[in-house]
């Protein structure tokens, strides 16, 4: 046992590259400004100021990310090696920022009703206080800084080069999301239930993530991913500490991306949360979580891949099948898309398992393509409304195509993209990950992937048939049109189409981003 001696002067001042960390710092800084606005600005001005601060913050961060990407060949570490600034990370961060901007259009929407979020979260549903807050037209503008904090955490999560930074980023991204889930304006009991479930399960899984980190620290003497990789090649990969650590860490990571057997939270949370927030979670959180999975398995555990591959094979197969099969019986449109998101998590894992450059670049492309389609689809869901809010039950969507052909047609297009029909981005993305998986020798995975795509196509097409070939309901839902939501839908549809018809530029971008792999 070595005694620890440390004099006060021995700790060097950390060197922090502010320029390279700027996108994250801008978003977190904008969130802090948002908190100040909440404290200092009069109530009437808060909405405008908060939206301005959020949009300016996200746009500035995105511009800086682009500048970092085209400046020099990005392959650096920052903050004493704790954060990696490299091609794949910048691609993921840029994707998260654009998708967050699109979701912000839905979150800031107030054409349908005062806000998609509750007027006052502290009031009990159905109480006189709640009615008063609704009549007074209150809006909970705290949601904007919360969203920005969550996006800040999402930006750090895939960039974290050591497991401690990754854990802190995980919590910075999750804690605001737990709160936001419980703040829906309508169906508040469902929303609060979703928040409790998400919170308890999320905290449970982060405890696993952390215990895994402790085991790997015990094995390697460091939580830095590169040093864990070095320790694995030096000491061999059959230490019980190492294997236990990898297993526990994977539980935490796979929970965040909603892979089976850790998928149980996803349908409940996606259904209960406000739809604008579901759009953010289904796109940005998934991108960030898969980014984190990629970094851990490509940098830290790459030399151990023969040991974790069988486990990940099983997880990927289970995820694809569970997502596709259980989705068939769903009657709520958000819940159905949640199961579809689980299945897509499985397709993404086939790209992760390939552990080669093609696997990385195809996963990046898939993430971007899927994110745009998802935000677009959830944006359509916010537009189709009943007297009681959004028309969640699928039976309410019957015959929508006859009354609102444009909206129903766009939704059908998104569903076809989820199913992976050619000329949509979904086809290109699936083709790319399956090709990479085949090159990596995972033929059985590809077969399961194609089979579960076929199963999934059934329930997507069922919705399309329901919308276009059944008689419209007499008291059917109306389509509430607004410029902001329509912009989100249009951008989603445009990108889905462009990535499907001329995918070469985006594929090339993903390839050049993945060219040098992750920095160590």
């Amino acid at each position, binding site marked *: 046992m070595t005694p620890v001696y440390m004099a006060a002067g021995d700790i060097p001042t950390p060197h922090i590259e502010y320029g390279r960390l700027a996108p994250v710092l801008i978003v977190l800084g904008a969130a802090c400004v948002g908190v100040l606005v909440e404290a200092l600005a009069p109530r009437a001005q808060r909405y405008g100021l908060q939206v301005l601060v959020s949009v300016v913050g996200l746009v500035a961060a995105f511009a800086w990310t682009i500048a970092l990407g085209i400046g020099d060949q990005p392959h650096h570490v920052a903050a004493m090696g704790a954060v990696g600034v490299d091609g794949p990370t910048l691609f993921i961060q840029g994707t998260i920022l654009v998708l967050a901007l699109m979701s912000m259009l839905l979150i800031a929407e107030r054409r349908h009703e005062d806000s998609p979020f509750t007027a006052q979260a502290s009031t*009990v549903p159905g109480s006189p206080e709640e009615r008063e807050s609704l009549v007074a037209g209150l809006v909970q503008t705290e949601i904007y800084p919360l969203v920005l904090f969550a996006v800040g955490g999402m930006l750090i999560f895939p960039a974290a080069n050591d497991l*401690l930074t990754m854990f802190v980023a995980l919590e910075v991204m999750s804690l605001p999301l737990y709160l936001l889930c419980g703040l829906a304006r309508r169906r508040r009991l469902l929303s*609060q239930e979703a928040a409790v479930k998400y919170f308890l399960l999320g905290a449970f899984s982060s405890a696993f993530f952390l215990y895994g980190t402790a085991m790997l620290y015990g094995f390697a003497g460091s939580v830095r991913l590169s040093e864990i990789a070095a320790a694995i090649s030096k000491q061999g990969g059959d230490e019980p500490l190492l294997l236990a650590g990898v297993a526990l860490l994977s539980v935490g990571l796979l929970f965040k991306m909603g892979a089976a057997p850790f998928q149980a939270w996803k349908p409940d949370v996606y259904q209960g949360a406000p739809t604008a927030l579901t759009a953010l979670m289904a796109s940005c959180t998934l991108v960030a979580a898969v980014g984190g999975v990629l970094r851990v398995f490509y940098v830290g555990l790459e030399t151990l891949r023969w040991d974790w591959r069988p486990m990940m094979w099983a997880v990927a197969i289970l995820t694809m099948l569970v997502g596709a099969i259980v989705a068939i019986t769903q009657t709520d449109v958000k819940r159905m898309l949640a199961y579809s998101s689980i299945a897509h998590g499985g397709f993404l894992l086939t790209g992760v398992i390939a552990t080669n450059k093609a696997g990385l670049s195809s996963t990046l492309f898939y993430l971007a393509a899927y994110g745009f389609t998802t935000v677009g689809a959830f944006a359509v869901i916010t537009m189709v409304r009943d007297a009681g809010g959004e028309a969640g039950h699928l039976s309410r969507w019957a015959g929508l195509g006859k009354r609102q052909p444009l909206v129903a047609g766009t939704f059908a297009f998104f569903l076809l993209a989820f199913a992976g029909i050619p000329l949509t981005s979904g086809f290109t993305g699936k083709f790319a990950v399956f090709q990479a998986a085949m090159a990596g020798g995972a033929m059985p995975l590809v077969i399961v992937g194609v089979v579960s795509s076929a199963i999934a196509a059934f329930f997507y097409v069922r919705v399309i048939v329901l919308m276009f070939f059944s008689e419209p309901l007499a008291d059917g839902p109306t389509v509430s049109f607004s410029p902001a939501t329509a912009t989100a839908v249009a951008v989603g549809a445009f990108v889905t189409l462009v990535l499907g018809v001329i995918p070469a530029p985006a594929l090339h971008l993903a390839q050049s981003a993945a060219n040098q792999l992750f920095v160590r």
Partner: protein
Amino acid sequence: MTGHYLVLSAILFTIGGIGVLIRRNAIVVFMCVELMLNATNLAFVSFARMHGSLDGQIIAFFVMVVAAAEVVVGLAIIMTIFRSRKSSSVDDANLLKY
């Protein structure tokens, strides 16, 4: 010697994990999660002693801060659902299923 602390940490983690799975009250479930986090802290500190480095002890501080933040958010959420349902049992929150 540090091996004993690791065994204790594993025992605490397991108790916490089992508690999350079998207890019904949301507050108790949450307490069990906190127990798991503290078990992790014990493991970090023991490993730091074993490796003769300070990293593990510093990580324990980060974990404490994160756990404190989690308490704030968690109790807020549990309070909200308790006020609307007059119950903090996780079995009663059953509107969302299948």
